[in-house]
């Protein structure tokens, strides 16, 4: 029915009216035809019954007297009735008695035995069997077979007439419907066109003519009222829209101003952030430089100590060499005496008293010079050792000051040894006992220089923590332990300990408890540990109870981190509370 819905209302009305007329007429015609056919069939049955009764009555005597000829003569009267094709008389016992059969009609129409009394019919024939009675009882039976040709012919003729009538009526009703629908649809179409016009022009002040006060007129009135409301609402909407537009404009202006301020603020913050970043980088650089300077100070201190020894050895050599003046004076005296007795050197040594003592003097001088040479040689060896020591310190410093970030196989025990070597003079001077507890010392991929920097820093701090402790209690314990995934390196001192309140801020940049401290060492160490994917923690039972710093490093480099930059991606996070405030 989609096509019907898409049709214009005029066509719909036209189709509906014509269809209604055609349907009503069609149903009426069909009903009338059916009734007519039934009536005709009933009439035919009545006619046949009457005819059969008459013929049967007229055949009574013939049957009674068994006069077949008379009976057949009687049946022959049925020939006048065109619809009757055949008839057969049966006697009272049901035996065929006399037969009438129209020429050209099949004998199969007639039953050989007595059929049931009544009417049976099919599409082509009607068969009536009636009982022939008189006062004394049943005389016989008559079976009449009639064709329905006339019925069919009449039906077809009436059907043709009905069809012609139907077509004519549909045509007339279509014409009338066309004229009538215009009365209804014209106003609806006008209303539709008006609605479309209003929609296109957005002119809600227009009004449609209501016309007659029927349903369409009511619809037009309702539409006009709706237009009035829409017009009012349109006005209110326009006003509201204007207000809203004004507010939007104001808000937009405010937002633009806010946006401008915000952008200015963002720029300002961006500058501040850049400044902060630059400052942080500067501070980082400063921290690194300070750490390096501190380490360099320690190194220079060690070098200075060695240089003191060198100076002592040099003074000793110089003093020894100054003592060598008497050997020079003696040799000059020997030279003078020998020069004076150049012509008589033999008698001089044999006869002159000075000559005879000169030989003893030369023997003693040789012995003495040999002793002095050994002393000087020993001192020279000592001095050479000091120079080598300085070279080692410088080499260690050079090693530590190299660019970090290169991952190489390392063993922490070796790095601990190098760190101790960088501080050994100071450790020895302060009488500090270093205990090594390297239970586990696996080789793993690590940043040697960063770890060494951390160790030097921790050992230096431990040494400083032991300054105010009795000499007999000055110990630093270096320990190595491993787990399945990490290695733990601890530096434990028996020093002054750390106040619990300071534990949370000890890694903060600039925090120090020493007057000469900078507060950079532990901060940079904690950062380095974090950048390597590990972390640095501290623990202390309190003041005077020593402290322990534990460096935890992963045995396996985490995937996703750049080669040579372990922990770099996580450099911005502090793993434990002790390094949470590692950043500025």
């Amino acid at each position, binding site marked *: 029915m989609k096509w019907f819905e898409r049709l214009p209302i005029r066509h719909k009305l036209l189709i509906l009216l014509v269809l209604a007329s055609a349907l009503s007429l069609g149903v009426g015609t069909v009903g009338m035809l059916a009734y007519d056919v039934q009536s005709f069939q009933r009439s035919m049955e009545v006619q046949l019954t009457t005819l059969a009764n008459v013929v049967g009555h*007229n055949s*009574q*005597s*013939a049957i*009674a*007297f*068994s*006069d077949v000829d*008379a009976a057949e003569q009687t049946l022959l009267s049925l020939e006048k009735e065109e619809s009757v094709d055949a008839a057969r008389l049966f006697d009272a016992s049901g035996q065929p008695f006399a037969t009438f059969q129209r020429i050209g009609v099949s004998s199969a129409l007639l039953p050989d035995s007595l059929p049931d009394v009544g009417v049976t019919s099919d599409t082509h024939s009607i068969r009536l069997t009636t009982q022939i009675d*008189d*006062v*004394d*009882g049943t005389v016989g039976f008559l079976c009449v077979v009639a064709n329905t040709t006339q019925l069919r012919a009449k039906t077809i003729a009436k059907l043709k007439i009905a069809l012609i009538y139907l077509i004519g009526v549909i045509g007339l009703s279509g014409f009338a419907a066309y004229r009538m629908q215009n009365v209804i649809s014209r106003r609806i179409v006008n209303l539709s066109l008006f609605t479309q016009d209003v929609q296109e022009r957005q002119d809600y002040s227009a009004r449609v003519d209501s016309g007659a006060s029927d349903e369409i007129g009511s619809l037009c009135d309702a539409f006009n009222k709706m237009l009035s409301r829409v017009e009012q609402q349109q006005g209110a909407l326009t006003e509201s829209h204007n207000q809203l537009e004004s507010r939007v404009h104001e808000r937009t202006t405010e937002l633009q101003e806010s946006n401008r301020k915000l952008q200015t603020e963002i720029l300002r913050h961006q500058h501040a952030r850049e400044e902060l970043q630059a400052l942080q980088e500067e501070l980082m650089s400063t921290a690194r430089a300070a750490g390096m300077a501190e380490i360099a100070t320690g190194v220079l201190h060690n070098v200075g100590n060695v240089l003191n020894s060198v100076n002592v050895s040099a003074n000793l050599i110089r003093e020894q060499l100054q003592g060598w003046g008497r050997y020079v004076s003696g040799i000059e005296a020997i030279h003078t005496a020998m020069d004076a007795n150049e012509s008589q050197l033999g008698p001089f040594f044999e006869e002159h008293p000075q000559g005879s003592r000169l030989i003893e003097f030369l023997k003693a001088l040789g012995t003495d010079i040999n002793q002095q040479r050994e002393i000087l040689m020993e001192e020279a060896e000592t001095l050479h050792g000091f120079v080598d020591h300085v070279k080692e310190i410088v080499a260690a410093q050079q090693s530590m000051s190299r660019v970090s970030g290169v991952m190489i196989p390392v063993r922490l025990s070796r790095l601990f040894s190098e760190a101790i070597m960088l501080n050994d003079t100071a450790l020895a001077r302060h009488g500090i006992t270093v205990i090594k507890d390297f239970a586990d010392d696996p080789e793993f991929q690590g940043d040697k220089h960063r770890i060494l920097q951390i160790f030097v820093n921790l050992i230096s701090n431990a040494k400083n923590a032991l300054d105010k402790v009795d000499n007999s209690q000055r110990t630093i314990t270096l320990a190595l332990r491993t787990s399945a995934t990490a290695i733990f390196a601890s530096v434990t001192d028996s020093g002054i300990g750390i106040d619990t309140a300071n534990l949370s801020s000890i890694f903060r940049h600039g925090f120090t408890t020493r007057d000469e401290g900078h507060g950079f060492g532990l901060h940079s160490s904690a950062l380095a540990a974090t950048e390597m994917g590990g972390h640095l923690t501290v623990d202390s039972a309190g003041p005077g109870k020593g402290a322990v710093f534990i460096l935890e490093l992963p045995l396996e480099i985490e995937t996703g981190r750049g080669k040579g930059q372990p922990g770099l991606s996580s450099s911005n996070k502090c793993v434990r509370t002790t390094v949470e405030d590692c950043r500025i």
Partner: protein
Amino acid sequence: MRWLLLAWLALLPYVAKGQELVVREAPIKAAYLYNFAKYVQVPTRQPGGPVTIGIVGDSAVTAHLQTIAERKTVNGRPLKIETFSTARTDFAYDLVFISRAASEELQLNTLAVLHEHSTFIVADISTLIPSVDAAFVSESNRLRFDINLRRSKTNGVQISSQLLKLARTIHEEKQSL
């Protein structure tokens, strides 16, 4: 003897046929008499009373008619059969059948008594037709009957057209008796 035997053999079919016809005629005649009673209206007949049939002569028809009378009625009235073989003067029958078995004297006596009497007279002898209402005739090995309508009308006996149309011959005008 030989000639006699051959002659008897030659006539045997006819003899047998005649016996068969005699045997078959009696019930037919009885049925005809019954139907005559149905299609004939006698003015003297008592309303509601039995239809009486008198059989003159000792005929085989009587037995068959008795059989019919036992199981059938005539227009709703019972059928009463009486047989007499001697001359009588009082006849109160609706229908009288004069059989061939009756003597000629009895036949004539009966006809004389029933002359102008409103009784439907059926005779088994066609020669008696001027004095009777109907007479059986055999034609083409078939039993039929003739009607003397003149006598019936004279005596007020009404014969149904149903019966008339079955008659071989209807004598209606004056005829020489």
